[in-house]
């Protein structure tokens, strides 16, 4: 978004097993994105062309549940390199829609059902090239420790904006993390 300067906080956003709706909602910050760009460098995410999760990230928003081996590996990488990790949106927080497949059986069974039995795919089941599915989809906090939860499907742009402001204020001031849960029902809601 902008050139790196030393006094800006480093922000990453990550897209695991989700629909990218949380990122869309993030983009709905619209003109507030300019204000955000004054305060942070976006160093990783679907909006950048960076392939490897960088070091020394201050704040990482993680959208999506942990559904496959790539998700899992990236989750561990981002945890190891982030000061504050936000479980961002219902898929990250609860598994949400992504986890609906947990009721449909083992990954092989699932792949056969979705791809193998599909009439127009000639029985092609993706078992290579794409990352292998984990036995079950898990919420992010089952895999790595989480600092802040921001539920919603997706969280509204207003909710994201308020949360980011509080988090960035705290990080810039070197204070403890704010409690996002104490701020009324609008700032905390599944669905």
């Amino acid at each position, binding site marked *: 978004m902008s050139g790196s300067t030393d006094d800006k906080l480093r922000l990453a956003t990550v897209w695991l097993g989700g629909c990218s709706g949380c990122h869309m909602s993030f983009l709905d910050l619209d003109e507030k994105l300019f204000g955000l760009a004054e305060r942070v460098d976006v160093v990783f995410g679907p909006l950048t062309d960076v392939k490897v999760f960088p070091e020394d990230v201050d704040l990482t928003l993680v959208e999506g549940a942990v559904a496959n*081996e790539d998700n*899992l590996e990236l989750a*561990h990488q981002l*945890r190891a390199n982030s000061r504050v990790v936000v479980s961002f949106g219902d898929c990250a927080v609860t598994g949400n829609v992504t986890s609906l497949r947990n009721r449909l059986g083992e990954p092989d069974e699932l792949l056969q059902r979705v791809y193998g039995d599909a009439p127009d795919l000639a029985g092609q089941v993706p078992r290579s090239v794409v990352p*292998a*599915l*984990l*036995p079950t989809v898990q919420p992010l906090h089952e895999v790595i*420790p989480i600092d802040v939860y921001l539920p919603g499907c997706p969280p509204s742009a207003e909710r994201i904006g308020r949360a980011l402001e509080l988090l960035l204020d705290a990080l810039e001031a070197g204070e403890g993390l704010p409690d996002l849960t104490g701020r009324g029902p609008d700032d905390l809601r599944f669905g």
Partner: protein
Amino acid sequence: MAAPIDLDDVVRFEREERARFVRRALVCTSTACVTAGALPVRDRLTAALDEAERTDIGVVSTGCPGLCSRGPLVRVEDRAEQTTIYTHVDTEGAGAIADEHLLGGQPTDGATTMPPDLPFFARQERVVLETAGRIDPERLEDYVGEGGYHALAKVITLMEPAEVVDAITRSGLRGRGGAGYPTGRKWALLAEAEADTKYVVANGDEGDPGAYMDRTIMDSDPHRVIEGLAIAAYATGATKGFVYVRAEYPLAIERMERAIRAAKRAKLIGRNVLGSSFAFDLDVRVGAGAFVCGEETALMASIEGRRGLPVLRPPYPTEKGLWGQPTMINNVETLANVPAIIARGPDWFASLGTESSPGTKVFALAGSVADTGLIEVPMGISLREIVFDMAGGIPNGRTFKAAQTGGPSGGCIPAQYLDTPVDYEHLRDLGSMMGSGGLVVMDDSVSMPEVARFYLAFCRDESCGKCVPCRVGTEKMHAFLDRICEGTGRRRDLQHLESLARTVRATSLCGLGQSAPNPVFSTLEHFRDEYEALLVDLEEPDAGNRSEEVAHEPA
């Protein structure tokens, strides 16, 4: 209508009859010995005597003398009160006992016996089990011959109901079902309640794993329970009673039903008890196998034919119980204490045991001890005396680790508290409870988190499902224990387990849920290091740690 039984006549007759026998073989036919093969043993003895046409030698089917681990037990008594107790008797052994001892008059060579003064027996103080193992539970006359129903006759002819309540209060008797509520106070509450119909119920829905005190009392001495109930009814003004027995106790059900029929014929219960104006109707109700039906409101729902679910208290059963009428529920063992208290006086009873917990307690000894079975000991005896002196200590060269009292609602008592007196207060202070009397001894090979997991699985399976903390909380607590026991638990799993345990204890509807976390709390208190040792203690689990769990090979 037939005349009521003349108790003194029966006593005289039984004494004379007893004196006719040169020798008697007492065969335990309680559940444990029957399971071990006691019935063919008894039949073999009977057949041998029939063949020899000896009517002066008797074979008696008795209830449980207690040493279940050495059954089937055959006790041979002769006129001079010389007693030999044969253990692990099979039909072949029964043949030898019949030929050599019963007919031949000489103790059988080579058979395994045990001395009658074995500490297992000698250290007991039998009040509730006074006649268990000595009389035929299927003969009313046997019980009467030992002084049975005399206490009932005494209260009906000589005492006002209020005097009976007073006697129970002064005896200091407390509920033997677990909580230890003063029995006299409960009786007084029912006595004060005003209603046309009042009920008394014997709670025989004993469900703790490894506990079978009530079962034994019912299948070994059913008339004692009936007499206790009838006295309770007389004292409180109740006219109708139920013995609630779980379906898993077929022998106890059969014998209770038979005993009730016999008592009705003898006019010991029913209309005009012993010719008086006192009326007391009694029936057996069989449970359907739910642990929660031991909880009194769920038990009452079950008796009424509804789903066995607990309901909110107050109102308490003594205000609003069965079919909306005042109802009192006493544990089977509690009631079995009553005849002796009336017959021998409240002061005698109060002199047994300790000041705050008078009397005796029956324990079902199980687990890693040399001898398992049923014992009745004075309250206040130390765990050390029970485990090491009476039960013969820990076998297989192992050492004592802990004893679980109170079943899934109780807790474990580690070795450093072996000398603590066993009574309501001391066990509670140790984070356990008296409970109904299950006592499971564990040796050093036992993992305590596993123990907690076992008991929690029991509570989870037995939760009725009505309230959220018990229905879901026990399941999720068990899931955390699964992780911990299987070596995949993290520190925060242990933290969540503890916080959830506090919520389940504080917010569950009935005693089942409120006490379900107790095994977790108590094993954590005394053996936290065992939990810690199982944790995969990483603040930030890395990919390497989790990869085994999530291995998914691309084909």
